[in-house]
C-alpha cells in the first residue's frame, strides 16, 4: 500500500508572492470574462500543485493529471457561482481537490461538503471589491501564521493537510504520543483562528 512520506516541511513553506496570493483576482476575472486566456491561466497556475498533491496520495501520473483537470474544470464551471461569503476561492479549490482525493483515491465516503453546498448557501452575489480585498487579507493572514509556525507544528499540520494522514498515523510516523499530535494541531488551530478573528 502506498504510504506517502512526510517530506521536509520546508517544501510546504508558503511561498511569498505565489499565484495563490492573487487567486481571488483570477477567479473574479474568470467569472467576469470567461475567456480562453483566463481558462488556460487557471491550468498553468494551479495544475501542477494539484497534480502533485494527487501523486503524493498514490495516484499514477495519468490519474493525477485527470484529477487535476477535473478539479480545475469544476472551479471553472462554478466560478460564476462564486461568492466570497462561501469562503475564499483558494479554500474552494483545495476543498474540491481534497474531496476528489477521498472519493477517487481513498475510495471512501466524502463527508466534507463543498462550501457552495453548505446548508444556507445563499444566492450568489457579485464579489464587491472590498469583499475580494478582505479575502486577500484572510489568505495573507493564514500565510503569515503558517510561515511563523514552529517547525514541529508545521510538520504535523502539513502531514494532515498535504499528506492526508490521520492523527494516529501522524503519531506513528513521527513516533510521537497521540496527545502530542493533537496538541500541536490544536495550537496551530488556535493561531489561525486568532489571526482571522477580526475579519469575520
Amino acid at each position, binding site marked *: 500500500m502506498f504510504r506517502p512520506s512526510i517530506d521536509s516541511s520546508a517544501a510546504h513553506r508558503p511561498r511569498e508572492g505565489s499565484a495563490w496570493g492573487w*487567486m481571488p483576482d483570477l477567479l473574479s476575472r474568470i467569472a467576469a470574462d470567461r475567456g480562453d486566456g483566463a*481558462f488556460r491561466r487557471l491550468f498553468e497556475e494551479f*495544475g501542477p500543485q494539484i497534480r*502533485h498533491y494527487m501523486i503524493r496520495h498514490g495516484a499514477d501520473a495519468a490519474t493525477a493529471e485527470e484529477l487535476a483537470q477535473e478539479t*480545475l474544470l469544476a472551479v471553472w464551471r462554478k466560478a460564476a457561482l462564486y461568492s466570497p461569503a462561501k469562503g475564499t476561492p483558494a479554500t474552494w479549490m483545495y476543498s474540491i481537490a481534497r474531496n476528489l482525493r477521498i472519493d477517487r483515491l481513498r475510495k471512501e465516503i466524502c463527508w466534507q461538503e463543498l462550501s457552495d453546498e453548505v446548508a444556507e448557501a*445563499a444566492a450568489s452575489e457579485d464579489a464587491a471589491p472590498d469583499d475580494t480585498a478582505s479575502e486577500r487579507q484572510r*489568505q495573507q493572514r493564514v500565510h503569515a501564521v503558517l510561515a511563523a509556525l514552529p517547525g514541529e507544528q508545521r510538520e504535523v499540520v502539513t502531514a494532515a493537510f498535504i499528506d492526508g494522514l*490521520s492523527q494516529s498515523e501522524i503519531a506513528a510516523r513521527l513516533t510521537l504520543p497521540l496527545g502530542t499530535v493533537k496538541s500541536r494541531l*490544536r495550537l496551530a488551530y488556535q493561531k489561525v483562528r486568532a489571526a482571522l478573528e477580526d475579519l469575520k
Partner: protein
Amino acid sequence: MNTPISRHLDGATLMSFAAGALAEPLAAAVSAHVSMCGECRDQVRDMALVGATLLGGALAPGGRVAAPVMPEAPVLAEAAASPRRARARALPAPIARRYGLAMEDIEWTRLGPGVWQHRLALSPGARGDLYLLKLAPGCRLPLHGHAGDELTVVLTGAFTDASGEYRVGDVQEADAGSEHQPMGDRNVGCICLVAAEGPYILKG
C-alpha cells in the same frame, strides 16, 4: 427546541476534518455536528484555507497540466436551491441524504434494556464504526472505554455522564483511555450518532 449548542468540536478534530484526514466514521459525525452548528462550520471553512495555502506553497515537480478544451461557457449562477432548513425529521441532513434515512423509518436493534442501535454502513475499506444509538429515559450504557477516538453527536433529547449534560447538537469527544457511562435524559432519553475509530472496551 433550538437550544444553543454549547459543546463544540476540538480544534485538532476540526483541523483533521478540514484536511480530509479523519477516519470515515469520525468524519461522518463531524459533518453531522457541523450541519447543526454554524460556528464550527465557519471554523472548518477557515481551516480549509490552511490546506489551500500549503498546497499553493508546495513545490510541484513534474510539469504542467494540460488545459482541456474549454467548455462552452461556465454555467451561470443558477437560482440557488432554497435553503435547506432543519426539517421535522431530526436526522442531520448529511446523514439523512447519504443513507436515504428518516428518523421514523429506522429499524432499531435492541442491545439491552432501554438501549437500541442502528448501524450505518461504511465504505468497504474504512475502519471503525458508525451507528445511531437510542437510550430510553434514565437508561445507561454499560461503563466502557475506547480503543481509539470516539465522537457522539446528540440528535434528539439529551444524555449525561460524569462530564455533564449533552443536548441536541452538542458533540462529545472521547479518546482511547477515557471511560464513560452515558445515561439518557430522565424525561426524553436521547438519540445520538456515534462514531468510533476502534472497538468498545467493556468494563464489566
